[in-house]
């Protein structure tokens, strides 16, 4: 099962990278598709699936669960909104003559249990307002570098930093 998932994903990735479709080109068989690279991709994806089949995702079924895909689609605009907000904040801090920064490293806790969930949370935190994950300990304690520290207490910091993503990521990964 896991190997089949990896085969499909890597074949799609191959198709994206090679992109064997070109409407301006007429191949030897008269279509715009490059059949040669499509077939080569099958071989490469098979090789990848056999060699690295055991290395990826613990719950391969989640990839094809429509509910999970729905929550990923809901999560993306939320994430993008916070990403833009983060950039405007950094822009403001950079251009302000006095640079009103108050940096520090705080500790937050997460309820997420799966490894990929915590990874996604850490990456989301890094790309959003004024925060950068420094380390993850015991699988649920994150140490976060904060550009403008609003509260050094664990509970309050968790509420501000983690809660805005946790709801969605819990739906996606758990």
């Amino acid at each position, binding site marked *: 099962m896991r190997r089949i998932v990896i085969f499909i994903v890597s074949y799609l990735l191959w198709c*994206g990278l090679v992109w064997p479709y070109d409407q301006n080109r007429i191949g030897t068989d008269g279509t715009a598709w490059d059949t040669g690279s499509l077939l080569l991709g099958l071989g490469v994806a098979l090789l990848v699936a056999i060699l690295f089949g055991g290395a990826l995702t613990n719950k391969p079924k989640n990839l094809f669960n429509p509910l999970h895909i729905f929550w990923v689609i809901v999560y993306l605009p939320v994430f993008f909104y916070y990403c833009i907000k983060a950039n405007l904040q950094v822009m403001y801090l950079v251009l302000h003559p006095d640079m009103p920064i108050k940096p520090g490293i705080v500790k937050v806790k997460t309820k997420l249990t799966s490894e990929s969930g915590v990874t996604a949370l850490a990456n989301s935190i890094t790309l959003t307002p004024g925060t950068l994950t420094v380390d993850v300990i015991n699988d649920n304690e994150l140490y976060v570098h904060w550009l403008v520290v609003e509260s050094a207490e664990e509970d309050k910091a968790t509420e501000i930093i983690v809660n805005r993503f946790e709801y969605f990521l819990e739906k996606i990964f758990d």
Partner: protein
Amino acid sequence: MSEIIAAILIGIGVLFNLFGCIGLVRFPDVYTRLQAATKCVTLGTCLTLGGVAIYGFAGGFGAMGMKSLLCIGFLAITAPTAAHALARGAYKYGVKLKEPTVVDLYQEVEPQPTSIEDEETETT
């Protein structure tokens, strides 16, 4: 029309990259600089690639647009991971958090080795 949108997106992207670079110069220490570098440069580059993708798709469903979209995905995943590794490595190597820092709870679990910068100032 799509060329104008592409040009606007690329322009905004370059602008964000510029702010990221200014932040890289102005901020006081490694960690705050990483903040500027990851956020602004990631979004700036993603927007630039998005502009390229729109420009590419305008001339047909070709390889250029598709590859730019894939690059956005790769960049959005790898950039924060790299920043995380850099910040942790810097902390373990003993790079201190500079002056305006108010709190450092990471000290509890990971006591810093003696700062390299202190030794340097003593010898000079």
